[in-house]
């Protein structure tokens, strides 16, 4: 077994290692120098596209057809996408391994599953007009630069919206890059443009000149953590500065005459310069390391290192992780390294094993942890095992040790080793795996149609497998040539007992493939009513869609179906769908009430709902401005009801409608007679009209109106009373009292209202006496309320109510008291 430190090289005071991941990657005929290459992060797929600007040998019409080829890191062709959509100006990946292709005319495609399915969107008019020059991608968005230097950002692909950034200067751009939103101070993407001598930082609101003197910069590159920026000047100097442009970290003179073709960060502390077949690594403090290759080399920057691609090999260059360095560094005396040695001795059955353990006894827990961690960093299974063995040996000596980390690491390594296999081609490092998460790893496996491995990994990690099955079934539906019934059977039997299976998705695939019968069959197995609806709608299964929407209980879905159907169907059939579906009808009614009254009218007519229809006309009448149109609408409403034999209460409504019309006419004439057409009466209720008439001394008219409308006597009496009191027309009130012996509402209300208005004289003087229906005590109480204690006493005295008088005495004072004493005195002696 080769020594783990074999590929290590020292750069400054740090070690870097280059790990050969795969060899014989690409076909030797593939001229890498003629290709544009883009690799997904976390060791994802690689897309190749022939660089149009370079000449290439003519090999017959077959190969002249241009295509985008997607490879795994091991060089296995995953998918070839034929391309005839024009010149490609941007090729990149999102963190979910969606391939983005941006063309010169501003069209962007997002290939979301590695299998050639895509969604498409446009970058807008500016892009179309000026043309896209280049693109830079980050985890879930990209920035495109146009030929006029305008910048367009797209920040997510789910619902892509292109957004113009602030306007940069129009001078030619030497190089440019972006700081992803996650690392930018402003939390939105920032663009660094090398223009002239300096760098401009552009975000959505402003373009700021950083005033650097050393330009022009031919390469700009931002470190993975977004903290540092590398600038490569025309004269071969490399500058490293902080991304806020405040501090210079380092400067290095490459002494190179030719411009490197690429400058990339390797991790966060070194920079790679790449020429055609030569790569220089500049570590901290200007230390340099040079690698030479036989052929063209491409750099694919990743989160924790750089992948180097040549025709022959795929290599991973990274800083040696600290724990690995601790364990393996020559002459290392760390406890972990001693522990590793111990297990070696143990295998040799040497007593030195025990000695070693004793030596590091106090640090043993740390040593075990370090070995477990270091195992995670190894690509070779031999050293993984060796390190885990060491950890295992160490922990067996410990009294108390939680094996969680150990077990966890074993699990992770097992998964990593499985996907690192060249047939899968996902050479993830531990750090990449932890960033990616296991769920997304499984998604990657699904996209590569590695179903078996995906299920095995899911089961092993106790993750849900439903998505895998659904994807498998969709592929089956898409590609199988078997009869539809057989496909349905295969799918259903395979998926029947599984949890969380979305038959809707599978059915949709079937429908998209034009197999609508199969789609219907599959949809029947979907247990979520709501999910079935959109597909049913697009399959024009209107009635079924409506029923399923109703069954789901989600009114939004029902609305949605109704909106669609209203557009798609003639009105009559739309209404027919509504009958016997009260919920749908109710929703149509309530939404039409605000938006589409004519629809409502038709609906009521169709259903022969006369009363509702009449009410609708009635509310229209309310909305009218001119009195005549109001009356007309009311007549219409009345007629509408009459026409129908089915509406028995028609007569009752009819009468109200007529009264309403009469009142409108009356009020119009009152307004023109009394107020020169100003709207004073219009809009008042009948009682309010009477009230106002009396208040404005049109009592006679009020009487007439009351009798015309057959206002009940009591109501009129009350209305008149309140109006007269409001008018403070005491003479009129007194007259009423003197003229009438009886009142329809009794005299008590008169007393109360007059008293309430503060006229105690009238209340007490006139109305108490009229309340003959009340008891003596009540009447005396009324006197008291008017402040006429003496009268109250007399009332009681007349009835010889001594007790009442005594009670009253307690509340009286001054003259009243004397009077009551007198009255009591009058009554007393006789007893």
């Amino acid at each position, binding site marked *: 077994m080769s020594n783990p430190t074999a590929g290590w090289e020292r750069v400054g005071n740090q070690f870097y290692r280059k790990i050969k991941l795969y060899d014989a990657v690409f076909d030797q005929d593939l001229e890498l120098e003629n290709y544009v290459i883009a690799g997904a992060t976390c060791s994802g797929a690689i897309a190749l596209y022939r660089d149009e600007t370079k000449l290439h040998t003519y090999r017959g019409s077959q190969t002249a057809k241009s295509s985008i080829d997607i490879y795994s890191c091991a060089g296995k062709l995953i998918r070839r996408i034929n391309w005839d959509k024009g010149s490609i100006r941007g090729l990149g990946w999102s963190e979910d391994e969606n391939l983005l292709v941006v063309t010169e005319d501003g069209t962007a495609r997002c290939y979301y599953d590695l299998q050639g399915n895509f969604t498409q969107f446009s970058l807008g008019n500016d892009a179309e007009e000026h043309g896209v020059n280049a693109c830079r991608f980050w985890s879930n968005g990209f920035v495109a630069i146009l030929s006029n230097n305008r910048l367009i950002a797209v920040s997510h692909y789910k619902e892509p*919206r292109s957004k113009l950034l602030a306007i940069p200067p129009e001078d030619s751009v030497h190089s440019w890059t972006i700081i992803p939103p996650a690392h930018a101070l*402003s939390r*939105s993407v920032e663009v660094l443009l090398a223009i002239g001598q300096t760098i401009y930082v552009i975000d*959505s*609101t402003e373009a700021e000149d950083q005033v650097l003197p050393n330009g022009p910069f031919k390469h700009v590159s931002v470190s993975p953590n977004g903290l540092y920026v590398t600038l490569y000047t025309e004269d071969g100097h490399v500058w490293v500065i902080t991304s806020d442009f405040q501090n210079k970290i380092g400067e290095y003179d490459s002494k190179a005459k030719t411009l490197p073709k690429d400058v990339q960060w390797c991790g966060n502390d070194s920079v790679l310069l790449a020429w055609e077949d030569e790569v220089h690594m500049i570590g901290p403090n200007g230390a340099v390391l040079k690698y030479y290759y036989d052929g063209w080399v491409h750099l694919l920057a990743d989160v924790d290192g750089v992948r180097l691609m040549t025709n022959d090999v795929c290599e991973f260059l990274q800083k040696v992780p600290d724990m690995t360095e601790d364990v393996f560094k020559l002459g290392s005396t760390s406890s972990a390294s001693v522990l590793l040695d111990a297990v070696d001795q143990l295998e040799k059955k040497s007593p030195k094993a025990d000695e070693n353990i004793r030596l590091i006894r106090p640090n043993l827990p740390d040593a075990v942890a370090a070995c477990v961690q270091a195992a995670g960093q190894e690509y070779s299974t031999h050293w993984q095992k060796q390190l885990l063995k060491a950890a295992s040996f160490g922990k067996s000596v410990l009294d108390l040790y939680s094996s969680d980390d150990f077990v966890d690491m074993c699990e992770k390594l097992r998964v990593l080793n499985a996907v690192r296999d060249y047939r899968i081609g996902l050479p993830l490092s531990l750090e990449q795996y932890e960033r990616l998460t296991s769920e997304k790893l499984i998604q990657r496996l699904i996209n590569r149609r590695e179903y078996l491995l995906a299920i095995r990994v899911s089961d092993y990690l106790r993750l*849900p497998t*439903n998505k895998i099955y659904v994807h498998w079934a969709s592929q089956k539906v898409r590609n199988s040539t078997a009869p539809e019934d057989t496909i349905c059977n295969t799918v259903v039997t395979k998926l029947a007992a599984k949890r*969380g*299976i*979305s038959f809707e998705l599978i059915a949709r695939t079937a429908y998209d493939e034009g197999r609508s019968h199969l789609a219907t069959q599959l949809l029947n197995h979907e*247990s*979520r*009513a*709501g999910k079935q609806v*959109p597909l049913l709608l697009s399959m024009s299964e209107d009635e079924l869609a409506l029923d399923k929407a109703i069954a789901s*209980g*989600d*009114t*939004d*879905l029902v*609305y*949605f179906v109704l*909106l*669609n159907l209203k557009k798609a169907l003639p009105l009559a059939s739309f209404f027919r769908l509504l009958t016997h579906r*009260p*919920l749908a009808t*109710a929703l149509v009614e*309530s*939404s039409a009430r*605000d*938006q589409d009254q004519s629809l409502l009218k038709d609906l009521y007519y169709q259903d022969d709902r006369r009363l509702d229809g009449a*009410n609708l006309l*009635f*509310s229209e009448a*309310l909305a*009218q*401005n*001119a009195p005549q149109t*109001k009356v007309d609408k009311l007549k219409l409403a009345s007629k509408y009801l009459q026409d129908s034999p089915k509406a028995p209460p028609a007569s*009752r*409504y009819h009468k*109200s409608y007529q009264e*309403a019309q009469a*009142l*409108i006419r009356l*009020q119009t004439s009152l307004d023109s007679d009394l107020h020169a057409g100003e709207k004073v009466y*219009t*809009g*008042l*209720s*009948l*009682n309010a009209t009477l*009230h106002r008439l009396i208040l404005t001394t049109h009592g006679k008219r009020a009487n007439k109106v009351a009798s015309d409308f057959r206002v*009940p006597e*009591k*109501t009129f009496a*009350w209305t008149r009373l*309140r109006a007269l009191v409001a008018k403070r027309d005491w003479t009129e009130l007194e007259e009423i009292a003197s003229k009438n012996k009886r009142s329809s*509402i009794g005299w008590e*209300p008169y007393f109360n209202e007059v008293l309430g208005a503060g006229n105690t004289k009238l209340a007490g003087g006139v109305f108490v006496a009229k309340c003959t229906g009340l008891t003596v005590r009540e009447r005396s109480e009324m006197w008291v309320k008017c402040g006429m204690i003496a009268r109250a006493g007399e009332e009681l005295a007349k009835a010889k109510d001594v007790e009442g008088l005594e009670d009253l005495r307690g509340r009286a004072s001054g003259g009243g008291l004397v009077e009551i004493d007198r009255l009591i005195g009058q009554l007393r002696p006789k007893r």
Partner: protein
Amino acid sequence: MAPHPGIDTDQIKEKARKDLLGLLEGVRGKKNLVIEKSLAGPIGIFVKFSTLQDHGIDKVFFLENDNVDASQKNVIFLARGEKATQPIAIAKQIKRLQKNGSIEHEFSVIWVPRRTLVCNKILEEAGVLGDVGVEEFSLHFIPLEQDLLSLCLEDSFKDLYLQKDPTCIFLAAQALMPIQQAHGLFPRIIGKGDNAHRLMELLLRMRTEQAADDSNTYKFGMLPSASIESLIIMDREIDFATVLLTQLTYEGLIDEMFGVKYNQAEIDSSIVGPASGAQQSGKSVGAPQHQGMKRKIQLDSSDKLYEQLRDANGAIVDGLLNKVARRLQNDMKSRNAESISELRDFVGKLPGYQSEQQSLKIHINLTEEIMKNTQGDIFRRSLEVQQNLYDGSDPSYQHDTIEELISRDVPLTTVLRLLCLESCISGGLRQKDLDNFKRLILHAYGYQHLLTLDALEKMGLLSTRASANVLTNPLGVGGAAAESTKTNYNYLRKVLRLVVDEVNEQNPNDIAYVYSGYAPLSVRLVQSIVQKQHLLTITKGASAASNGVSSVAHGWQGFEDALRNIKGETFNKVQKGEESAVKARHMLAGTGGKPKSVVVMFLGGITFTEIAALRFVARQEEGRRRILICTTDVIGGDGMMEAAIEKGDFGKG
């Protein structure tokens, strides 16, 4: 109001706050916020206006006013997306700004509580979907108090019973699901009423759908909760009468007189005095502009004094206030502190005294105003009618009084409440009487109320007694049919002892204290589940209770007859998890003796009096179980009438 360790309402509040601010921060820079009016109040409960300003909100506009200006580049709309009205309004305003704005705007729309297909479609058809950033703010339950969650759907009552639009049932189900996800399945879902039944079915359906949903894959599915005992769902429809009665608790009275919305009441400053500077700074979202003479009073448990008063019967509030005033005076007097440390103690308490004194002043003023009103002739008369009606005396004796009230031009809501109450309690009015009243109302309040009256009939609040003879029969034998179409109060009055004559307002011994003698039917039903023994004792006497139904009875047991005389479906559903999993948990956890929660959901709204009554029940059950009240909205009788009242009149033009 003990906090619920099981369901932490403060956490809901905090999460809502964080989510909203996060969404607002998602838009960079200064921005204008356009908010749907009915959302301003609910949001004001958990975010102060000043906080919004700290997060870059420059100005706040109401969506309904259609007046957002171009003063900021960024414009955020915040609205509910369940109906077409809001997306249409938003699309219109976006287009307006795009057309005449000199600057290029950045629009975003935040839909509450979810992004719907309908609003997508409407924005798409309007051609603006591509220009807006769309977000969701999944705001479901808003905690008004620690024991009270509301969906704050102002239109829920109207939607449900007039428009027959069940959106709020779906939203209620969506709001209840997270509770199940966090605390396990409701072991029992029990309830009454057709809409309640639909909610139960939705909950069951959502549970199975969730199992099929790939984003939510639980390894074993959900288990019945260990901390929740049951979910009780009450459909408002089963008991309209309770809402129609005048609420007589202190909080209820404030609601009746001034209206309480989202823990706030707007009260004329001539009554409570002008707002002090301190309170103005705490202005909430709901009040971007201070309104002329009105002053907003915060009415929630942060005011310790109010917490004591709110659920007390209005008649004893002045006594309570007196006591507090005297105590406060004593406390303040005790300031002749002996030592420095005592003095420091005293000074430390000073701010507390001050705020208490301030709130005391407010509540004394409020009480005075309320008393002025309750002693008035009209209030007394309408209360008299109500009491006679629920006592079961012949309703026609009340007609003169109601007619008089109409002639005296009292507010329409008052009259309608009395008429509807009569209709509800006695199973409808005679055709002749109804026609007469209708005419009187049209005369007194305008012919537009033809529509109002129609709407009331549609809601089943007003009806004729045509075929209702069976229902007036106090024996309840008419309930042979599976479900009743109307609630038969005459029967229930006896069986559930709705009328309690000797109610003690000072030291309540029964929930009937909230209406000074009438026990709300809805809460009686809750009692029939959680306080079975107690209710049996007071309805049938102690002996019947002990031998009638075993003490382990659950569900509706013992009250089947009563339920048969209440409108709508009755249900009692037990939710079980997979057996093996249940067993496993039993082994692991054992059976804890900790008190469990009962979640009571009022679909269609709840009144303050019912809340008070439920709190009363909760206090009696303290130590055994906790009650968490959920509702679509807090309503009152006037609000219920407003849902039906036609707002237009013939005065236009």
